[in-house]
């Protein structure tokens, strides 16, 4: 065991190349900059920083890049958009709205679409990138969850990421409502109705948010300030913090030969990752641009301006709010009562509180798991999902819960497209919401254990080579080939926990929280497949 006090890294400690002083204009410029900023320290520290290679490690970058795309396209849109609900008469190119009264917000959005060259393209880029932003954050979180990359020391970064996810949804919703069209107006109407149902202060919150009665003339301007100022500032600050922690912690890596908890193996930022990650930004932007070129999104001219009386069949929010809309749809009939001359709207409160609790569990999960395992070590090796069957199963249950709510938001479209009755679809989903997570939990856990068993058998006996050999006695056997050391290491190097045994503490008692912990620990680790050891291999080779 060697302890190093100085980083063992690339040429960080080596002196600057002599070429720099004689490097012509580049040399002059770097010297100029360094003498005023000391940037050579930054280059020395981070220029050869190592970043491990795995496709799933790029998902966070997709989120970052879509945010940059949103900022670029959004800035363009702000130059033309008018966040005002003042009445105007539309007189632009779209005939079925000509002469109609609408808000300046709606009119300017139509003008961006039909009068500004490239305006429609930028609107569609902005909207597609917004959908991609939230989706990639979601996928990134799933990757972190299923590989256990939220464990110490990354719990705080998980929380930051969680807040970013919530902020991204808020960004999306505030932006979706800005054009003041019929679809988003009905979305706001739903939000107003939900807020109204909050006990005691609900009606007053709505009164303050909308500046009086719904819809009022204030909401678009207020959402705009949130959408382009406060929320982006918060997102930007948290992204900065998130990335600082990524640098401080260094990226996790999957188990593999040569990879340990104390090193990180991969390619240096300069030049390989600069090329790959930099190029990837243009790829993400290109894919978004391609979608904006060929696929229409949010055609507000079809929806028309907001009016409280009409509504369209298939009124749905953007995908990331779908789970909340689905929760509202799945509440069975009759969940509201009057007590002491006051109305309690459980049909609104249960979804609001339920989703809040779901999100709270997501946010708190790293702390929960750390408490159950009692593991206070730093973890920099990502788990393969199968090697933590209970966590993976919990994740699958959560995904099922979320996905059912999400699907429920399109219950009417499911009914029409699969020729089912809407009542049947909703009732099925109500059952699926309760039973689905349990089924997903058990199935996933069994699948994980089975995969672990398969890994174990390969590590012990090798893999089936497909080569059939006839023994002298006439017996046919398939030859098993041993895996090499590098491959075996991938199969056997994982964390293994045993269930917690409760023991009385110094005063001879077992505190209740320890009992709870023991129960949870048993739940987590009762079914476990141990990693193969050298002893196991030796024993098995004697057979």
């Amino acid at each position, binding site marked *: 065991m060697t302890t190093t006090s100085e980083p063992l890294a690339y040429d960080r400690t080596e002196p600057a190349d002599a070429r720099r002083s004689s490097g012509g204009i580049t040399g002059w410029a770097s010297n100029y900059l360094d003498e005023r900023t000391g940037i050579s320290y930054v280059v020395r520290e981070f220029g050869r920083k190592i970043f491990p290679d795995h*496709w799933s490690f790029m998902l966070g970058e997709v989120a970052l890049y879509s945010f940059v795309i949103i900022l670029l396209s959004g800035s363009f849109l702000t130059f033309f958009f008018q966040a005002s609900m003042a009445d105007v008469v539309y007189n632009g190119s779209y005939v079925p709205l000509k002469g109609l009264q609408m808000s300046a917000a709606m009119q300017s959005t139509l003008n961006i679409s039909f009068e500004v060259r490239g305006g429609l393209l930028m609107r569609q880029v902005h909207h597609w990138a917004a959908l991609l932003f939230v989706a990639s954050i979601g996928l990134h979180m799933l990757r972190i969850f299923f590989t256990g990359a939220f464990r110490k020391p990354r719990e705080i970064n998980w929380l930051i990421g969680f807040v970013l996810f919530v902020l991204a949804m808020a960004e999306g919703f505030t932006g979706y409502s800005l054009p003041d069209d019929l679809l988003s107006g009905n979305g706001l109407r739903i939000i107003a109705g939900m807020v109204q149902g909050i006990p005691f202060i609900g009606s007053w919150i709505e009164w303050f948010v909308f500046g009086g009665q719904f819809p009022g003339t204030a909401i678009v301007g207020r959402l705009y300030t949130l959408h382009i100022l406060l929320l982006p500032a918060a997102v930007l600050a948290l992204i900065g913090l998130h990335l600082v922690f990524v640098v401080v912690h260094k990226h996790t890596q999957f188990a593999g030969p040569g990879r340990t908890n104390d090193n990180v193996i991969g390619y240096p930022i300069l030049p390989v990752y600069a090329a790959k990650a930099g190029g990837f930004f243009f*790829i993400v932007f290109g894919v978004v641009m391609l979608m904006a070129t*060929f696929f229409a999104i949010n055609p507000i001219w*079809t929806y028309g301006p907001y009016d409280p009386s009409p509504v369209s069949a298939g009124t749905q929010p953007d*995908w990331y709010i779908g789970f909340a809309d689905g929760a509202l749809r799945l509440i069975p009939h009759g969940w509201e009562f009057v007590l002491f001359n006051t109305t309690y709207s459980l049909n609104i409160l249960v979804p609001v509180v339920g989703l809040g609790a779901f999100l709270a569990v997501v946010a708190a999960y790293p702390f929960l798991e750390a408490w159950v395992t009692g593991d206070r070590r730093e973890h920099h090796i990502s788990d393969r999902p199968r090697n933590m069957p209970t966590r993976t199963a919990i994740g699958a249950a959560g995904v099922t819960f979320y996905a059912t709510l999400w699907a429920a938001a399109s219950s009417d479209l499911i009914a029409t497209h699969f020729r089912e009755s*809407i009542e049947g679809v909703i009732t099925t989903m109500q059952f699926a919401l309760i039973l689905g997570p349990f089924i997903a939990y058990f199935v996933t856990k069994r699948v994980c254990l089975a995969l672990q068993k398969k890994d174990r058998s390969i590590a012990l006996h090798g893999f089936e080579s497909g080569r059939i050999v006839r023994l002298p006695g006439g017996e046919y056997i398939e030859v098993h080939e041993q895996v090499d050391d590098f491959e075996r290491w991938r199969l056997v190097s994982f964390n293994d926990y045993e269930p917690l045994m409760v023991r009385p503490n110094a005063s001879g008692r077992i505190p209740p929280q320890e009992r709870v912990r023991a129960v949870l620990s048993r739940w987590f680790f009762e079914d476990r497949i141990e990693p193969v050891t050298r002893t196991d291999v030796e024993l098995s080779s004697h057979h």
Partner: protein
Amino acid sequence: MIRTRRAAASPAPARARRTGRRSPIASVALVAVGLLLTGGAYTLFTASSGASAAIDLNSAQTIAEGKKLFQANCATCHGLALQGTAAGPSLVGVGAAAVDFQVGTGRMPLAQDAPQAEQKPPVFTDTQTKQLAAYVASVAPGPGIPESKYLQADGNATRGAELFRINCAMCHNVAGAGGALTEGKYAPNLHDVSPTHIYEAMLTGPQNMPVFNDDNLSPQDKADIITALKQTQQNENVGGFALGSLGPVAEGLFLWIFGLGAIVAFTVWLTAKAN
């Protein structure tokens, strides 16, 4: 403010056109003109056939032919005197419009017992449909087949679109993509429905659709709605493929499956070790 901006922007394209990018524009314009002409001709053609100029609905011969057809194909459910039976409603006073709609869109005769009658290829020819309509109208008066002047899609699209949003969009979707009703019923997609049938549906309220009589939506209102529907459909693809005009659900699914799918494929390529 917007007007000035537009005015300032307009000279630029004019200049660009003068600098000799004429041929791509010309070919695109040619294609557009061709499409417009065929589309226009098609609209004219279908409109005139819908107006049934060839058949006199009041002639005794037409009614007699219609009666024969009715007795052979419809009377089992609707009764020999249109009085209705347990299997089908009375048709007294439903008018020619209802018959033309139900038979002309293939909803009648019913194929099977379903939550609602489905649109399908019509069983009867246009002439036979008109004969049936003439016969049913001759028994008791009812709403007639609409005049062709209301079916030209040349009314006020703005008014029509507003009326459509208020009276129709809640069931048929604001883009006419259709939507769900209770217990397996649904409001159909309106994209390929002819102006005549749209008019007749409003007038007669087939199945669970409410009736929009002329006091509720005047004939000109109905003509405006037809105009708006056609205009909306023509402009559906301004921003690209409309993904079925199903709104955010289709957009979200597309993003997850194709958008994110493509990007994940790129990440796999990007991190795979080169050969």
